[in-house]
């Protein structure tokens, strides 16, 4: 199969999906979600912070929770140590005397066990999770609570950004997270979310209890829980102005490791317990469009990347073969004689790819605008161009892991 034959359907699906997001953003449910005002009611809330070797950041995370603009008697913070080997327990112990904070030790290892230990220790109406490397804006909770107005809403996600991105890899992820803010907002308006990310997602306690708490979920307990919520017929909402900042991997290898774990989890959940959701009309846009497109995107990207690399290498070998014996001074000399539109590459795929890129940039910029996150757009957008080169690496790795039954450790 040639790369072109695969590329055209892929680019068509990409444009279709972006158009769908744009249309959805303009439709009434999304407009209503944007018009939602901050809550005035203050139901009881508990935020669980599962910690494993997060001694450096857990204090900042806890302080940001204590600074939340919410009645102190309604907000409980539960710090759960998950077999840390650093100074995390010592840092957590500093908050032991704070009446708002409860410090626990998880009996069993695993993030899902830590979260479940926290859930068992509270009667709050709503339960939030916050990774111990993340922190929140003071008004975040007031943005989240009104999303639970309808009883069928079982979970609410926040708007994630990267905290003070410095490296190219962090800027790249910041653009991606900003894109995610727009996507999550659009998809939530039609109940198309399948992840409730670790940073500041909230759950209706009664539903979590009904569903039996968190599970291992192939190292993606947040995704597994979201899929279980959807399967049970509940909805997942989004609060695009509930800002939460998280630490991101700073290097390409650590990013690939993190994303491989996420993609592994997605593939294993989708091909395993939750495969019945795919192309199932009962699950609406999630079953009929979001999940099939997400799976198609992984498979197509892997195939397209491998095909392109193979073609590139073969062409490079051929180009070298042709040029062998010709003086390098000629081969390397620029043969450019000024701009001539005649030689301008006019190709349907290039044009469609350019449209996809422009729309992506628009969706990134809109995410920033929507969440009112301060973000330097230029470096993020420039770094985002790298994404297309790096993402296939973790997609290939995770696809291979799943295909060969290889399991990955957390760190």
């Amino acid at each position, binding site marked *: 199969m040639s790369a072109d034959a695969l590329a055209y359907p892929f680019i*068509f699906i990409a*444009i*279709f*999906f972006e*158009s*769908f997001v*744009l*249309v*959805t953003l303009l*439709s*009434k*449910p999304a407009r209503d979600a944007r018009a939602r005002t901050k809550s005035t009611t203050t139901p009881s809330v508990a935020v669980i912070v599962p910690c494993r070797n997060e001694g450096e950041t857990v204090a900042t995370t806890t302080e940001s929770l204590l600074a939340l603009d919410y009645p102190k008697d309604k907000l409980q913070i539960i710090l759960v140590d998950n077999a840390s080997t650093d100074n995390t327990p010592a840092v957590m112990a500093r908050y032991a005397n704070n009446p708002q904070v409860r410090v626990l030790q998880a009996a069993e290892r695993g993030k899902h066990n830590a979260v479940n230990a926290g859930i068992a220790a509270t009667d709050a109406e709503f339960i939030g999770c916050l990774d111990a490397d993340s922190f929140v804006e003071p008004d975040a909770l007031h943005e989240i609570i009104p999303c639970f107005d309808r009883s069928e809403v079982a979970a609410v996600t926040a708007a994630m950004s990267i905290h003070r991105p410095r490296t190219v890899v962090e800027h790249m992820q910041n653009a991606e997270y900003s894109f995610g803010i727009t996507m999550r907002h659009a998809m939530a308006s*039609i109940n*198309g979310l399948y992840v409730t990310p670790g940073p500041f997602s909230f759950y209706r306690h009664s539903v979590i209890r009904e569903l039996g708490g968190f599970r291992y979920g192939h190292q993606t307990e947040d995704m597994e829980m979201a899929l279980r919520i959807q399967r049970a017929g509940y909805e997942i909402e989004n609060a695009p102005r509930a800002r939460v900042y998280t630490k991101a991997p700073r290097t390409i290898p650590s990013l690939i490791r993190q994303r491989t774990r996420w993609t592994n989890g997605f593939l294993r959940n989708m091909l395993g317990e939750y495969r019945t959701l795919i192309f199932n009309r009962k699950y*609406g*846009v999630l079953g*009929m*469009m979001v999940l099939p497109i997400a799976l198609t995107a992984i498979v197509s990207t892997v195939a397209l990347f491998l095909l392109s690399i193979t073609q590139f290498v073969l062409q490079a070998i*051929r180009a070298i*073969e*042709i*040029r*062998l*014996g*010709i*003086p390098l*001074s*000629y081969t390397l*000399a620029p043969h450019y004689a000024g701009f001539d539109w*005649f*030689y301008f*590459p*006019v*190709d*349907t795929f290039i*044009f*469609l790819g350019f*449209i996809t890129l422009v729309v992506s940039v628009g969706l990134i910029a809109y995410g920033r605008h929507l969440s009112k996150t301060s973000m330097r757009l230029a470096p993020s957008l420039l770094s985002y161009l790298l994404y297309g080169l790096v993402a296939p690496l973790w997609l290939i790795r995770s696809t291979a892991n799943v295909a060969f039954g290889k399991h990955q450790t957390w760190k």
Partner: protein
Amino acid sequence: MSTPLRNALIALGITILLTATVIYAVNYLNNARLAELAAIEEQLSIDTLSLETQFLLLEAAPCDSAASSTTLTSELADLGSRLAYTESQLGTDNPQVVYLKKKYSLLEIRDYLVTKKLAAACGTKPVTVLYFYSNSGECTDCDKAGYALSYLRNTYPKLRVYSFDYNLDLGALKTLIAVDKIKGNLPAFIINGKYSHGFTTLADFEARFPKGALSTSTPKKN
């Protein structure tokens, strides 16, 4: 109709519209490119005819038209580059590309004949190469030969290279092939009237040129 379904149908409509617009635009631009090629060919056709007429008119002093011949050959080379690029974009089977290639080949043959006439009349000693190639896959060394000829033409501007697609269905080209007794062994060359075929290395290829033919030319300074 549910909101997601309605949105999906609108999105599908937008996607089809966008794709159709892009296909139309690309087609339009490609046609514009072909039109430009046709216009250049038309102009070169007039120029060739003019040169031939000039040659006949100046029977007493035919060498006055030598400068025009050099310009024409250089314009022909530029047209060749454009045609090769268009062929790589639109494919070798594109009917318009094939048509333009036929016209281009005719122009090349006519230029070649004028060059020969001028050489005989004026005593000049141009180095001409008739290069026969094939794009249909059976000629694995044609790309190498084409690149080597580009290098030589760039290095020795007085070298006149005429490239012909061996498989082009064109009467004049078939006659040229028959007259020069070109067999199917490609790449094939007629270097100053002498037949050879195959390509291994640049050094081996340069050795096929008449002694001093390349060194006497003024090397182009990059």
